[in-house]
């Protein structure tokens, strides 16, 4: 099936010349990479998503025979992790140079603005140290160079700015892909895709792939389903489109349009899995994907939404169309049970204060016993010792056992 490979991967540029647009940035980057004595050892490429930052690094290293050691947002970038990967990579420059044709290593830290202050503690500091000590070129890419936490990086790097790619260039690129995929496309159709992408080449290619689908001919009419990139799509629509997506590309595109809350999305997906996968083995496999996606989500935190494209790739693979339910069960359950939970939490807090334990421990090690006391003797003095209110006592007595 031709949908097996995302075209953004398939048509990834092999040479610097293949990267479209941003001529100035390309030139200064190539010059920096080729020069023998670099004034600044590191470079920070910054600009909006999908304009070719990562593509340029890969194309250039391919052209100049560098071996790319890459770390991106899917790796935890704590100080320790960075040093582990980057330390060796940045010091053994000479060996490689003599033994092979290769120019040696090149360290590429993609999406450095994703080095969250929270999980990746010490990450930025470690990067700066690596830059200072490195004997190989260090390249970083980021979307938003104004981020406060990146400021220290800006001092040690050569900054290269990327802009949105011009529409005619994108159209030309889409045409080349169409030719290779044997698709006859109307110019207006490609123009619409390109304009809609707002200079984001990656999303334009994704759109093209999902619109083309199995078709041989692409008309302007086909592109009418394209949604404006800055228009919100509701959760319901997202899920509907997601679950009826016929390919990975289509699902990925849809998700890149949507601005739904990702936790809700994940939860809904989780809710719907057993409806889609009736066989326990398939279900377990699908859940494993979602679980990993969630782990990934946990690592990214909430700061940088676009990083979730990694998660899309991982998630979308486990998906095929089926009837879905919405809203998430968990959200409904939590809504209906909130008052109960709050009461129980209050009781646990009182027990915790008395018995030097956490509320959690109070819940599992004390509540079952206290409940039995009170069931047996409602006027048990224990309730006043815990300073429980009458309604709390009542709650404990009537509560179901866990």
């Amino acid at each position, binding site marked *: 099936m031709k949908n097996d490979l995302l075209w953004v991967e398939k048509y990834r540029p092999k040479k610097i010349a293949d990267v479209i647009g941003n001529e100035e940035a390309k030139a200064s980057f190539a010059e920096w990479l080729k020069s023998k004595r670099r004034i600044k050892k590191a470079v920070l490429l910054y600009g909006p998503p999908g304009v070719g930052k990562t593509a340029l690094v890969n194309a250039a290293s391919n052209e100049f025979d560098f071996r790319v050691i890459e770390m991106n947002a899917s790796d935890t970038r*704590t100080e320790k992790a960075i040093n582990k990967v980057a330390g060796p990579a940045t010091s053994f420059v000479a060996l490689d140079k003599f033994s092979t044709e290769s120019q040696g290593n090149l360290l590429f830290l993609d999406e450095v603005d994703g080095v969250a202050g929270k999980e990746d503690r010490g990450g930025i500091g470690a990067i700066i140290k690596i830059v200072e000590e490195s004997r190989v070129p260090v390249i970083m890419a980021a979307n938003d160079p104004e981020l406060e936490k990146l400021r220290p990086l800006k001092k040690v790097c050569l900054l290269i700015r990327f802009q949105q790619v011009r529409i005619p260039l994108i159209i030309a690129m889409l045409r080349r892909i169409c030719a290779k995929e044997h698709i006859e496309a109307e110019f207006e159709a490609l123009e619409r895709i390109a304009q809609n992408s707002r200079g984001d080449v990656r999303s334009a290619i994704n759109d093209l792939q999902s619109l083309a689908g199995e078709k041989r001919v692409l008309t302007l009419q086909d592109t009418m389903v394209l949604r404006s990139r800055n228009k919100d799509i509701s959760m319901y629509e997202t899920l509907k489109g997601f679950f009826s997506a016929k390919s990975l590309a289509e699902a990925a595109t849809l998700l890149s349009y949507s601005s739904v809350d990702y936790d809700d999305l994940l939860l809904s997906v989780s809710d719907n899995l057993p409806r889609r996968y009736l066989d326990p083995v398939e279900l377990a496999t699908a859940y*494993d994907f979602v679980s990993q996606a969630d782990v990934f989500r946990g690592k990214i935190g909430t700061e940088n939404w676009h990083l979730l494209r990694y998660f899309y790739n991982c998630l979308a693979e486990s998906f095929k169309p089926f009837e879905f339910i919405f809203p998430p069960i968990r959200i409904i359950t939590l809504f209906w049970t909130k008052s109960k939970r709050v009461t129980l939490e209050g009781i646990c807090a009182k027990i915790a204060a008395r018995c030097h334990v956490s509320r959690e421990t109070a819940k599992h090690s004390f509540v079952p016993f206290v409940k039995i*006391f009170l069931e047996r003797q409602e006027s048990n003095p224990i309730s006043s010792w815990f300073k429980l209110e009458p309604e709390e006592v009542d709650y404990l007595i009537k509560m179901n*056992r866990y």
Partner: protein
Amino acid sequence: MALDEEALMWVEKYRPKNLGEIVDLRDIVESLKAFMRNPKTMPHLLLAGIPGTGKTTVALCIARELFGQNWKTFTLELNASDERGIDTVRDRIKDFSRYSRAAFGNVPFALVILDESDQMTGPAQTALRRIMETSARTCRFILICNQSGKIIEPIQSRCAIFRFSKLDKKAMTEHLLCIAKKEKVILSVEAADRIVEYSEGDLRHAINALQTASVYREGVVDEKTVLQVIGEASPKQVQLMINKALNGDFIEARKMMYDLIGTYGFSGSEIVRQMQRELLKLSYLSAEEKAELTNVIGEYDFRLTQGANSDIQLSALLAQFAKVGKSKGESN
């Protein structure tokens, strides 16, 4: 709490007040007593071990031995799993170390007891390490945790580590009999043994079970009552949930899981802990199957700490159970 107010939960009433009263921890107590003789030499402490083995009790005893009657003034007791974030912890410790700087007698520091510190995330622990450094002159920390492996190395290296193992069954039985005697409850040795067996080395659980049993029949606790209490107080929902999952009824199992989270507000890690406990009790699984599922539980316990949504991880875990259940059904 007024000083003369008598504690009504026996776990509190019979919580040892000084190190000498502590049950079955001779080695630990001896080393700690050495610190008490010259408090200046006391380092930060890390007390690690399974629940109900006396870690918090030891910490509170140290506070009492150091500061006597006024121990509460000089001791800040925090529970990491209750405090919302490291910022709260930091602020409270900061304030505390600022205001209780005044040395007490020959004790040149105030005490911070941080319970369940392994519940803190890595970054929070890194922040804690800073706090420990900056307040080192005015504060000593006693960190309490279940697994010392979950405490980052820089903190471990700053502490004297004491490991608490499961309490000796005989010592526990004796302790229960002793409490029963003071409470004028007739407790048969068989009943005491039953409680000890059920509580798996967790003395807090054992004492709670004993006290609960004592309200069933005025003043007498026999084996039958104990069994009844154990039956009523053990986590049935979790058992049922595991059974459903292993029988392939994933949707029903997941519903129960949502209920545990929703209605009772259990945390993901607590549910996983109880699943592990209940799993080992299932008689219809072979040792190999239990080992396999234990592995699975371990993996998802880890993912829980990494992930964003505990119910997704728990659902995925239940799906794994259903898978194992299916292959078991086929091989039979």
